[in-house]
Each structure stands twice: as C-alpha cells, then as structure tokens.
C-alpha cells in the first residue's frame, strides 16, 4: 500500500477517535460542574484544556472560563485544531483523499457526519442540547468503527485504521487518568468521600467503565482499583492494556522490513502493560508512570510515521 494512503487511513481513524474522546471528556465535564466548590469547578473546567494542551490558546481567545466558552472552544471552534468540529473535518478530509481505498460505507459515514456537524447551530451545542450533541458524536464514532470493521477487507487499510484508532485511544485514556489523578488524589491510599465518588464515577463513565467498576466495588471508591481498571484490565476496551493488545495485533499483521524500531517499541509497551503491577506503579508514582506512557505513545507514533507513512 502507498505510504501516503496508509497515512491518510491512520489519521482518518485517529481523528474520529479523537472526536469521540473529546465528546466524552466534555460530557463528563458538564456533569461534574453540578457539584463541588468554585475551585473544584474551575479545576474541572480546566481539565479538558490541560488534556489537550490547549489552555494557553484558549485564554488567548477567551477571558472567562465557563462551560459555555469551553464547549465553544472544544466543540465547534473551526480555528481550534483539537475541536470536535476540526477532528470530524479532518477525518472526512483524510477519507476523501483515499475514498477509493476505503469502502463506500466508510466514506459515506464520515462524509455524512461532516455534513451534519457543519449544519448544527451553536445554540444546540452549548445549551441544554449539549449532552445530546456529545452522544451524537459518540454514536457517529461507534458507527464509523462498526462500519469499518464490518466492511473493509482485512489488509493494510484495515491494519492502519486499527492502529490509528487504538493508539489514539491509549493516548486519551492515559491523559484522562493523568489529569484526574491531579484533581482527585491527594494521597494514594485515601478512600474518597461522597464528592470524590462523584468525580471518579464521572471519570469511569467517560470511558464507559462505570458499570464494570461498580459490579465488584459498589459505591466505594478505591483510586488504585480505578487505575487498575483503566490501565491494566485488558477486558475493558478503553484500558491501555486493551488498546495495546489491538496495537500489537495490527503491528503483527503489517508487512515489511523497514519497521523494526516501530515494532520493537510497540511490543515492548505491550509487554510492559501485560506484566505491570499496579502497586508498583503507585509506589513509583502514577503520574510519573502516565507521563512515561504518553511519551512512549508519542515516540511510537513517530516511529510508525517514519517506518510506514513516509513522513515524520
């Protein structure tokens, strides 16, 4: 497969996944604002900006950090490259460039999503309709993934699409956990109170893991269990371990010899997550661990780019 085509497919999938994750983060953020002190609310509002590294950019354009301005910036701002709108646009642009190498259903899903989001008025997103909008974004992403999985030939296009999806998801889950770690974890072994419970529940919901967590632990919040679930529980499809199972699988199927550095790192990260111990992670510092993870994911992304996609 042409390197450029693989690149487009990789990024098409990454951008769609990124849009979904942004919708998840914003959805949780609006829920979190219902509780807590002014300071806590501010921290919660700041979190999505921290995750995406766009705080500085935000304050260049907005004086007040409110839910409204935040959603404005991260959902529909055509000038903010990390906004949902931009992600959907780029996913569609990438698909457009390779629409002959993907299935028409994939193209139509992304094209339809773009045509729809472009027509959504601001008022439907920042007001009471926000939750509905975020759900819609998630739905479209689920649909795209399903359509991809259900229609595309199992070849390089499929491999690079999967690679993009799960590398992006791993990145997002790690960021999400890292930011909440700051907000919520003054002491590792604390068991949180009612307010903390809400905060953690929101985090779990944002990665569709709330029900999974509650079954064994009920309404008790053990930060270490939450971290265990999001990092190492490979049966939980948004955990880092599960993402790297998929990354490794995709890498296994990709052919070619020019890629040893990328494959080596992917397998290394996979092994590290497979054989990790949550107590050890907490002893050495969760934040330090996550920082390392994010750095590794970034390096892996660059190596994939260099090995297969023709650009750095």
């Amino acid at each position, binding site marked *: 497969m*042409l390197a450029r085509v693989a690149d487009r497919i990789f990024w098409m999938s990454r951008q769609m996944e990124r849009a979904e994750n942004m919708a998840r983060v914003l959805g949780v953020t609006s829920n979190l604002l219902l509780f807590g002190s002014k300071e806590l609310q501010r921290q919660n509002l700041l979190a999505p900006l921290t995750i995406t590294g766009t705080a500085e950019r935000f304050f260049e354009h907005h004086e007040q950090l409110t839910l409204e301005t935040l959603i404005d910036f991260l959902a529909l701002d055509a000038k903010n490259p990390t906004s949902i709108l931009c992600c959907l646009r780029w996913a569609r642009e990438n698909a457009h460039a390779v629409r*002959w190498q993907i299935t028409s259903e994939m193209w139509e899903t992304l094209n339809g999503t773009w045509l729809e989001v472009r027509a959504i008025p601001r008022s439907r997103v920042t007001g009471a309709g926000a939750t509905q909008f975020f759900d819609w974004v998630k739905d479209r992403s689920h649909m795209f993934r399903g359509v991809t999985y259900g229609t595309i030939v199992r070849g390089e296009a499929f491999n690079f699409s999967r690679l993009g999806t799960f590398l992006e998801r791993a990145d997002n889950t790690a960021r999400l956990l890292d930011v909440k770690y700051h907000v919520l974890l003054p002491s590792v072994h604390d068991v949180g109170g009612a307010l903390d419970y809400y905060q953690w529940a929101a985090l779990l919901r944002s990665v569709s893991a709330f029900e999974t967590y509650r079954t064994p632990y009920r309404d008790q919040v053990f930060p270490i269990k939450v971290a265990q679930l999001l990092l190492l529980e490979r049966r939980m499809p948004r955990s880092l371990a599960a993402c790297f199972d998929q990354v490794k699988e995709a890498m296994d199927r990709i052919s*070619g010899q020019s890629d040893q550095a990328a494959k080596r790192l992917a397998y290394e990260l996979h092994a590290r997550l497979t054989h990790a111990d949550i107590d050890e992670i907490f002893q050495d510092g969760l934040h330090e661990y996550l920082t390392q993870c994010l750095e590794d994911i970034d390096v892996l992304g660059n190596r994939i780019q260099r090995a297969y996609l*023709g650009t750095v």
Partner: protein
Amino acid sequence: MGRAHYDEMQAADGEVRAHFRVLAEWLAETPADRVAEKRREADLLFHRVGITFAVYGDEAGAERLIPFDTIPRVIPSSEWEELARGLRQRVAALNRFLHDIYHEQDILKAGVIPAEQVLTNDAYQVAMLGLELTNHVYAHIAGIDLIRHDDGKYYVLEDNLRTPSGVSYMLENRRMMMRLFPELFARQSVRPVEHYSALLLETLRAVAAPQVRDPVVVVLTPGQYNSAYFEHAFLAQQMGVELVEGPDLFVKDGFVHMRTTSGPQRVDVIYRRIDDAFLDPLAFRGDSLLGVPGLLSAYRAGNIALANAVGTGVADDKSTYPYVPDMIRFYLGEEPILHNVPTWQCRRPEECRQVLDQLGELVVKEVQGSGGYGMLVGPAASRAEIDAFRERIRANPANYIAQPTMSLSTCPTFVESGVAPRHVDLRPFVLSGKEIKLVPGGLTRVALKDGSLVVNSSQGGGTKDTWVAD
C-alpha cells in the same frame, strides 16, 4: 444570427432522423413523471458514488455534480466510422509532427509551419530534443473536440494532447443510462464503450521501454483538490493501478520508485495528469510541490515512461491548430478527413486588423487558454466586454486567435419546461500505443442554458451519454 442550427434528432422539415427514431418514440410514450423520477434517481446515484468535480476559485473542497442529461445523443454507425477514420488520421499526423519537431524538423525546413512559431512556443520543450520515445508516440491519450456546424459537417474545434479529461463521464454516463433505462438498450443496439479502461491500460503498458517485461503503471494526480480528481481516482481504480501524488514518488539511482508501507517499489510508466510545468521542480517550475524531483533526468535516461510525453502542448496550441490540415498532407500524403474551423491569427498584423474590425461576430480565444476561460464569444458579449477584450488583444496580439462563430448542433435535452434543443459538442478519446484505438463514442457536453454555446462543465455545462448505433 437567425441561422438554423443543425438538430441531431430532427431534420429541417421536422422529420425525425432514422437513427433517433427509437429514442423519439420512447420519449413520446414515456410519462413525464417517470422520466423526472429517473432523473432524480440519477442525481442521487451520482452524489452517492461521488462523481463530482471541484470548482476552481470556490471554497476549498467545494464539490458539484456535473448535470447529467438523460436523453442520449445518437450518432449513426456509418457516420462514426468516418469520424473515427478522421480522428485516427489527425492524431497520427499530430504525433508525427511532435516527433519531427523534436528531431529532424522537416516540416519547419519545408516551411509548412513557421519555425519561430514552433520553436519559441512556451510549450516547446528543449529537453525533448533527440529523445527516442517508444513507438514514436507523444500524445498517447488525445481528446479531440468536435462540433457539428449548421452545414451538417463535423469540425475540429481543438485538439487536447496534454492531459485531456472527461472520459470518466463517458463511462459513468453509459453505466447510469443502462441502469436507469435498460429497456432502451433492448430496443436499440448501442455499441459498447466499457472496454476503454482496458484499452487505456494496454496503451500505457505499451509506452514502457521495450526491455521492461511486466511494467508497473501508476496514475499521477495533483491531488484531491484538482477539478478532475474524481476521474484520476476512477481510472486508477478501473485499471487496478495505484493512484499516486508527486510526493509518493522519488528518483533513486536514475529510476522512479513509489513509497509503499513495505518499502520502495519500481515504477515504469506514469500516466500523469499534471502539466509539464509541474512535473519536476528541478527541471521546470522550482516551486512545484506536485512533481517529482529528478523525474525529467530519469525520463531522458529512458528509465521511466510518461503518458503523455513532455512537450505535447506545442501541437495542441491554438496557434498551431490552423496548420493541422497541412500536417496531415505533409506527413501522411492524405487529404484531411475532418474539417478545421477557419482561423485568424492575431499575431499576423493584417489578420489582427480584420479581427478587431469584426470582433462582435467572432469567437476569440487565448492561444493557451482552456476550459472556456479567457474567451470572448462576440455575438453573446456586451459592448463593454468586447471593448475590454479589444484592449487585451491590442496589448498582446500573439496571444489570441479568432474564428467565426460556429453554430453548435442541438440535441433534445431535459430542461425546466420539458424537452428542448440545447447545443452540444463531442469529445472522443483517441489512444495511441502500438496502434491507434478508440471506443465508439465520446463525451457529449451540452450547454444547458437556452441559446448558450459554452459547454464547459466549469461554466454550467452538462453531459449526455453518447450512442453510436445503427
């Protein structure tokens, strides 16, 4: 004007021509609402498949459908055979001309065409001098624009020898018609065009250097924002070859390779859909991001074949056009089968004066213009437009040619008010590899506005399926 246009369906006395009879009957007996429903279906299908084109100057990525008219244009077989002979003859002579001007230059020495006009032409590529091309073919894919004048004869309006487009519409229009109105094809036997992609691939493979046993062919596109991107992708897919952009290719050790996920792969033939000037930033425009650095030297070394060849533009230039009949006589010793439109060259002072005197009656074109841009249709232009154009001609006479306003024949077409005659032209595609081949048919473009003679899709033209039938 007041002249009677030639109508493709009806003779002057109103009688339906024999080859249109089946269609006329079908039109008469098919309820209007069924036809309207089918037209909506066609629109929907074209949108779904994504047969769109980008419009220059429009917001990036803006796409439109080229309007598709569901009434085909029918050409009787006997007439087509004559046309095809004329097209083969013309393209053969044009290729001989291209070989000649980059080698012995016999035609210039014989004084048939003024040497300075050819050698100083912007499209003349010195880099092509003495280069031996497989089969001596330069324009492997040619699109020849024809019109039928009110005298009932076909005239060549222009030769497109660089990167002619439109063939995907010829193919898609046929597919659409067969899908929408299968019963029509049962009533009349229409000669097929579907094998065009196979012929194209065969032609492209024949372009490769003779020692290459199983040539790898790619289609080179400027990218998704190009107005003909759909066609590039379509043809690549139909032929089962890679669609590449400049940055996908690189030259190493004198050979061209494409970057794939499993490493570099050798390429032997490039069907390039980008202009000469953008092909190689080292040889032509240095600011081109579309091309491949080093491509020209690989080409000159015979390590890569290009279709069409570099430097074909000098033969389809509007200032060369008037000489094509003489070329045919010179190289083939035959009388031209297809007619040329009488042409005044503004580069000649006395002809320029005549042109300026009767500007309101003429069609004036830029020598290098295409797509209907940079063109004056005198009878349809306002006083102010004519005056403005007069100044442009005075400022740079060599840049313009003028022709009498040719009347384009009309063909019944669906419009708001029902079925009405609209002006059409015809672009058949001629493939030259080891031999010259063409499929029976071409792209019929139709000016959808009442009275309009501009058929270009960028200016509101539509297309029709073209039937060669008995």
